[in-house]
């Protein structure tokens, strides 16, 4: 009996010791937070706080290098690196602060993103990139609690409703309305038609569906819905079902590989109709797949920023080509570049107002409206939370052999229908 007791006591004592250490450690962390006020000080006339050490501002990047959106995550981040490198060599923030990026790869995993946010949030002035609707949505309460600013690489309406986020363009509903307006104006669809909409059952897809439904109500169209999973690989049955319904066009709110799947399946089903995709649906490598011919023939991309081959992005394209002479960029580099431009506008405004603390930066977000990004995006309005920050979209068609593998067909496009759109 004695032996057994002492045998038990040893692990119990060890556990108790570990528990005591953990408790002590967590107490000491808590004590630091409470006892030492944030390093808020006065630098000239500009107040600074968390996220600024000396003359260096640190901005967080929560991106995807290894998950389902790795292709776009890498290019968005490269666009951001190029932007801040240029700024650091030139005018800087406030004429003196350089910007460093604290980059973390969440692998398109919400839980990883939440953990990484907790690691970074105390050391950054804000997040210049939070890639993915699910991750950005999960971090809404955290950002609001910490009073930090974030720029999502996602355009769902729930993000525009958060005071912490500056969504870098029109939300998906507005984008979809503009895309359909373009198809209507080009005679590719007509009033009374039935159109299919294949969309993810998520903030991303459901927000785009609001747009297509509104457009349908305004123009007497019918929507045939195909609600799909984010990782659903085979689009054949979905497209066959839409072909049976006699749709005259298909709206896609999907992943890029699913876009190629739809294009190939449509070809197989003999469904020769326009395909309209939201910003995240296209990537240049899709033109190396069997879907290439149908994509070139029928695909239309509607997005929040200009293509990488167009004049507003000329500096970016040159810098990218200097850095990677043998790599073709996608339009995602412009998303990274333009979202950095928006962050710069906010930081410069905060500097003008003499307050580069996180609170000052958040206040500057609303104050920059209406904001212009040198043609990279449409005019942006962050003065009211809940509205789409922009109503201007960019339309492009796939074209092999040109930067971004797309050719712009309409810039700063605001169709007639979107004016009547008031979001519920």
């Amino acid at each position, binding site marked *: 009996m004695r032996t057994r007791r002492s045998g038990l006591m040893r692990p119990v004592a060890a556990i108790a010791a570990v528990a005591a250490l953990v408790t002590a450690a967590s107490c000491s962390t808590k004590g630091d937070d409470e006892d030492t006020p944030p390093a808020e000080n006065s630098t000239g006339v500009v107040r600074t706080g968390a996220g600024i050490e000396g003359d260096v501002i640190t901005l967080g990047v929560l991106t995807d290098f*290894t998950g*389902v959106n*790795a*292709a*776009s995550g*890498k290019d968005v981040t490269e666009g951001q690196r190029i932007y801040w490198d240029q700024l650091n060599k030139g005018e800087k923030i406030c004429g003196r602060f350089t910007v460093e990026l604290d980059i973390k790869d969440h692998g398109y995993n919400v839980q990883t993103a939440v953990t990484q946010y907790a690691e970074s949030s105390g050391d950054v002035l804000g997040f210049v990139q939070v890639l993915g609707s699910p991750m950005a949505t999960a971090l809404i309460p955290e950002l609001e609690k910490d009073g930090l600013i974030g720029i999502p690489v996602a355009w769902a309406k729930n993000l525009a409703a958060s005071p912490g986020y500056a969504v870098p363009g029109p939300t998906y509903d507005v984008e979809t309305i503009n895309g359909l307006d373009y198809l209507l104006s080009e005679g590719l669809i007509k009033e009374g038609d039935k159109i299919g909409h294949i969309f*993810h*059952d998520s903030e991303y*897809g459901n927000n785009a569906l609001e747009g297509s439904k509104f457009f349908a109500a305004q123009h007497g169209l019918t929507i*045939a*819905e*195909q*609600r*799909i*999973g*984010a*990782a*659903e*690989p*085979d*689009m*054949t*049955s*979905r497209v*066959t*079902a839409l*072909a*049976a319904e006699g749709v005259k066009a298909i709206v896609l709110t999907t992943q*890029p*590989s699913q876009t*190629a*799947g739809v294009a*190939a*399946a449509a*070809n*197989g*089903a*003999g469904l020769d109709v326009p395909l309209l995709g939201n910003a995240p649906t296209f*990537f240049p*490598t*899709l033109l*190396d*797949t*069997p*879907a290439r*011919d*149908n994509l070139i023939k029928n695909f239309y991309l509607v997005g929040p920023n200009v293509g990488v081959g167009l004049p507003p992005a000329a500096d970016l394209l040159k810098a990218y080509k200097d850095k990677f002479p043998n790599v073709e960029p996608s339009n995602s580099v412009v998303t990274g570049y333009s979202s950095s431009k928006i962050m710069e506008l906010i930081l410069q405004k905060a500097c003008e107002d003499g307050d580069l603390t996180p609170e000052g930066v958040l206040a500057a977000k609303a104050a920059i409206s209406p904001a212009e990004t040198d043609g990279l995006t449409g005019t942006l309005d962050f003065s009211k939370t809940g509205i789409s920050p922009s109503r201007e979209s960019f339309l492009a068609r796939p074209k092999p052999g040109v930067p971004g593998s797309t050719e712009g067909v309409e810039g700063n496009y605001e169709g007639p229908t979107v004016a009547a759109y008031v979001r519920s």
Partner: protein
Amino acid sequence: MTTFLSFLLNGLSLGSLYALIALGFVIIYKASEILNFAHGAFLLLGAYVIARVEPSVGFAAAVAIGIAVTALVALASEQILFSRVRSAHVASLTIMTLGLDVLITTDLTRRIGSSVMSLGQPWGADVVRLGGVNISENRLTAIGVAFVLIGLLFAAFRFTSWGVALRAAAEDPEAAALMGIRQARVGAVAWLIAGGLAAVAAVFLTGSPTPGLEPNLRTIAFAAFPAAILGGLDSTTGALAGGLIVGVAESLFAGYSSDLTFLGGGFSVVVPYVVMMLVLVVRPAGLFGTKELHRV
């Protein structure tokens, strides 16, 4: 009716590929009682090798190289990892396959990166019209190849000494050993064949209307796992039936999803698992699996 036939044909073509993959699971299980969770990784490896070598050697040679490399990697895994610890508990060996899966997949995901790789299938996006129903040439070829291979395997089980040895080893390993059957050899050949089958399935799973090779391919292969289980893990006929049932169910649920909105979006992805659970509730050993009998 045409729409239903389209769904059915698409389901059968997908199902025949699931059957090929499920057969790989079953052969390894029969030979060694190991559930090989690394099978999806073998599939990814086969597709990756073919995609990499195809531009320089052409499609046919690339497929041959891809099948050979995948089969040899499967064999090497068996020789290096599993045959050395044959006395270990089957559960431990199964967990080892999970580790192998993570290793291979992580490395290949890194190599594939953000691209969608093409395997250079010569039939591309061509479409064939069969009695009013369109099907991609890739999927039609898949049905043909899958059924020929499955037929050959069934013949091998029945008529070759390896097939008889495999069935004997699966039936009663101890008695088979006493009868002079070299189980190590039976196991090695089983892994070799399973690896080869995975590479063949990869050729068609990455063809039209699927855009090409991307890391997600491994998760597609996982749909074959419930196919093997619902068919009965030790039954080759079960693998065929399970594969076809899963493929058709997936296709029909995706096609008629607009009438089944109460199930939510993307239900077709979980259908294989739902069907598996329903079958197992009624027949715990699967449709064609051997019931375990214990003398009391």
